[in-house]
């Protein structure tokens, strides 16, 4: 059987089987889900040749599935993270209810995303997109909490995205008479000269999944409401489907050959406008999401807002349209999948072991969950973009692209503000869960089981590797970028360059940090080793006073109060409010319509009479 069919068959069968077996035991169901995703990944990475495709017809429509280098890049994220997250789920979901439904939808989301990667035509793309959306919707409302508020919001925005995508697909069929993505691209469907509506409609469709402002309002609630082991996929991989689509559209839009066209000047001009608009939307998304992330008291919500901020950076990178910028965006997409996946796994581990993710309730878990803390530490360093980990590489390229290539000098400042403020919530996350006072409430907490630790540590190690050898990821990114129209994409294993010829050598950096670290660590550990005493968090000097036995010394509430006070004007606006106002406006419109269509037969009869009277009055002008 063909590998494409086989992979999807394994995934769909795995979904069904884990649903059936879930009635027996959640562990068996989880194991089946894990095995099916792992088997699909194994086949994906070994059996499918790049560039191969199959064609078949379904109900008279020619469908084509294949694998190109661009899809392969996202396949790495989806199936790599999917395998680890499903392994993680087994222990995480162990004692929960209705796990069969959860695993069914979990595998279905992975199947949907794999299908999106395979799809070479718009019909199967759309079908798999909807499978992914619906399955994820069912997981979001799995807990039964906030269904009305969060579930409906997610549904509405997904529907907006789906309708605009569908409209674009119909327009492509109407104008170019093809459903094949490659044919549509070659015919110039995305190039913004002939078409303004198709690219914009598609961007709206993808922008919803990538949580770009102003379409991001569903994301914090949805990320928070889903079970944490699924949020790993939701934030790490599923949001990248939006990035996949945006990259495809924007890449072809910016690299399209615009020479020799009469409308050349104006179309080029409008592309620049669009580019700037999308870039600024991404930048503002990043700032607002960061500001909201740092006032959260719940670790999971904090990460949910942080995900939106990081997706904002990716949008900015894609919108630059330059080689370095797009490369930065795709690199950040991969690295964000890794570190945000790891961080949500950390939150899940804490949630399972300590019972809550509310940072005002728990603190000081570092000694109880050392491996979880280690993962959190490494991932947070990557998230904050601090050298020498993978996150820094992406941030560096993004800044250099904005400064050197795209002339977006003020956008750089916006991004920089957002990522400096990100240090605040990064610190809050580590401090809130792991550092600070060890209180009695968390005395019984133990380290998470090994099936949860392994995926976390794998991701943490990956972050270290991507920091030292980003070339390992540049290589698939470069071929992917050549697929979406960039030419001669160059990269080095451990050296970053910008167009002005400045370089950032990660090998020298790694060696320097290594040498300094080893020598100073040896010094501080060995010096007076016997005289060094480790004490608990109650043994402190609070300005010379000795704290009482039961005195509460936890500092968690209103953590960044001074910053929030200083930035108060920025907290006043909220996209949620604007959408709510729009909703209220629409409701008023519907209320007005209600005055006409009262549902009363007498009123309708009156309308008929009025209509006839008007007809008679104006019969001379109307029927000449």
């Amino acid at each position: 059987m063909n590998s494409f069919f086989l992979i999807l068959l394994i995934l769909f069968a795995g979904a069904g089987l884990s649903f059936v077996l879930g009635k027996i035991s959640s562990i068996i169901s989880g194991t089946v889900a894990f095995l099916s995703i792992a088997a699909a990944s194994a086949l994906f990475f070994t059996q499918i040749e790049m560039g191969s495709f199959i064609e078949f017809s379904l109900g008279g429509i020619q469908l084509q599935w294949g694998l190109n280098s661009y899809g392969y890049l996202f396949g790495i994220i989806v199936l790599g993270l999917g395998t680890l997250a499903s392994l993680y789920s087994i222990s995480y979901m162990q004692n929960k209810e209705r796990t069969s439904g959860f695993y069914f939808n979990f595998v279905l989301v992975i199947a949907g995303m794999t299908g999106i990667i395979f799809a070479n035509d718009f019909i199967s793309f759309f079908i798999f997109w909807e499978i992914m959306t619906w399955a994820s919707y069912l997981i979001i409302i799995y807990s039964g909490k906030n269904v009305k508020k969060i579930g409906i919001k997610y549904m509405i925005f997904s529907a907006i995205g789906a309708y605009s995508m569908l409209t674009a697909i119909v327009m492509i069929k109407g104008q170019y008479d093809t459903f094949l993505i490659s044919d549509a691209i070659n015919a110039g469907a995305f190039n913004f000269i002939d078409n303004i509506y198709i690219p914009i409609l598609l961007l709206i469709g993808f922008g919803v999944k990538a949580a770009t402002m102003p379409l991001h309002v569903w994301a914090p609630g949805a990320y928070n409401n889903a079970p944490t082991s699924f949020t790993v996929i939701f934030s790490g991989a599923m949001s990248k489907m939006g990035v996949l689509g945006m990259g495809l559209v924007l890449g072809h839009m910016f690299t399209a050959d615009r020479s020799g066209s009469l409308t050349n000047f104006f179309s080029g001009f409008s592309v620049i406008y669009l580019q700037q608009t999308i870039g600024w939307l991404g930048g503002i998304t990043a700032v607002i999401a960061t500001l909201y992330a740092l006032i959260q008291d719940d670790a999971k919500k904090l990460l949910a807002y942080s995900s939106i901020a990081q997706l904002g950076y990716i949008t900015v990178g894609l919108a630059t349209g330059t080689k370095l910028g797009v490369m930065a965006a795709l690199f950040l997409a991969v690295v964000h999948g890794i570190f945000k996946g790891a961080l949500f796994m950390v939150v899940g581990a804490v949630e399972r072991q300590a019972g809550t993710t509310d940072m005002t309730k728990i603190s000081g878990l570092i000694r109880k969950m050392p491996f979880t803390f280690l993962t959190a530490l490494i991932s947070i360093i990557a998230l904050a973009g601090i050298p020498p980990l993978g996150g820094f590489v992406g941030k560096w390229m993004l800044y250099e692209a904005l400064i050197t290539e795209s002339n977006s000098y003020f956008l750089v400042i916006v991004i920089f503000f957002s990522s400096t403020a990100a240090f605040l919530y990064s610190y809050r996350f580590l401090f809130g869960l792991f550092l600070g006072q060890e209180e009695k409430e968390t005395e019984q907490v133990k380290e998470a089981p090994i099936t949860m630790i392994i995926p976390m540590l794998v991701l943490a190690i990956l972050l270290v590797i991507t920091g030292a050898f980003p070339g390992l990821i540049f290589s698939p990114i470069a071929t992917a970028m050549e697929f979406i129209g960039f030419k001669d994409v160059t990269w080095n294993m451990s050296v970053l360059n910008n167009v002005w010829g400045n370089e950032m050598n990660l090998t020298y950096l790694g060696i320097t940090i290594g040498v300094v670290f080893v020598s100073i660590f040896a010094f501080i550990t060995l010096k007076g080793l016997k005289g060094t005493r480790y004490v608990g968090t109650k043994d402190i000097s609070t300005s010379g006073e000795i704290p009482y036995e039961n005195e509460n010394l936890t500092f968690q509430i209103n953590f960044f109060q001074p910053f929030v006070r200083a930035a108060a004007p920025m907290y006043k606006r909220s996209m949620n409010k604007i959408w709510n106002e729009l909703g209220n406006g629409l409701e008023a419109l519907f209320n007005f319509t209600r005055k006409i269509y009262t549902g009363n037969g007498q009123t309708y009869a009156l309308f008929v009479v009025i209509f006839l009277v008007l007809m008679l009055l104006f019969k001379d002008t109307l029927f000449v």
Partner: protein
Amino acid sequence: MEDLGIKIIGALLTVILAFTVGMTYGGIVRKLTARVQNRRGPVIWQNFLDLLKLQSKKTNIAHGFMGHMAPVWIIISAGTVLMFIPILNGNLWFPNLTFHGDLIFLLYMMVFGSLGMALGAGQTGNPNSAIGVTRGLSQMVGFEIPFVLALVALMVQYKTTSIQDIMDIQAQTGTWMMFANPFAFLAALFASLGMFRYSPFDIVGAPAELASGPVSEFGGKYLGTMMSGGSIFAFIKLTLYVDLFMGGAGFGTGILATIMGLGILLLKTFSLYMVPVFYGWISPRYRTEQAIRYFWGWPTALGVIAVIWAIF
């Protein structure tokens, strides 16, 4: 191999220089501040004595792994940044790695140490430490904005992101950057007030009510190592400013030229260092939100002007 040998010796020399200069400057400021306040004050090598005392403590208290690592992080950050900053222009004794890293990298690497210290302070469980950290991080978001605006202005104006290139351009044109783009210099100078954390921006440490803020739980070898790291950082910041805005220093590789270059460097860094110190003497303390608002006001406006100046 001989080349590598010189590099290693150069690196060690750089560290010793940075450490000595940073510590001495700190001592001089303590003395001067005392005289201004009509006190007698400590001797100018008091910082070295303090360090000696701290490092020779027989017992040390650590609050766990992160507390143990905090000074390590600071030294990693300080040492690494030092290797990537040009000390003397065109001098073989301080060759280091100036061509292999750029300004964006330095911006991020300099934060590494603060984050390490913040985490270490967090593990001690002392609420005062955590309060100091939140104040410090918030204030950092404040002053980084004008600082980055100034740096972007420089990068855009001369189409390079490398410090070495900016130094070379100043040497070639003969114009210091503080005159070529005065607004960028002013914005960066305001930012430096926050960076050095002298009054009015000393609420982070808040010696009076927070018992020295983040570091309140550290002592012995830990505090000593942090102090050394802090001194190296002071030298790094000053040298970075001199390199970027005041033409750097250095004449060549000969012994006399090296000594002269170092002399010029000391002169420039010291006079620059006096700016935040003087400003501190005459200013009362700001609250954190006032400090942030301060940096987001005129300094940021100057930074924006600097970028516009650089574009046109």
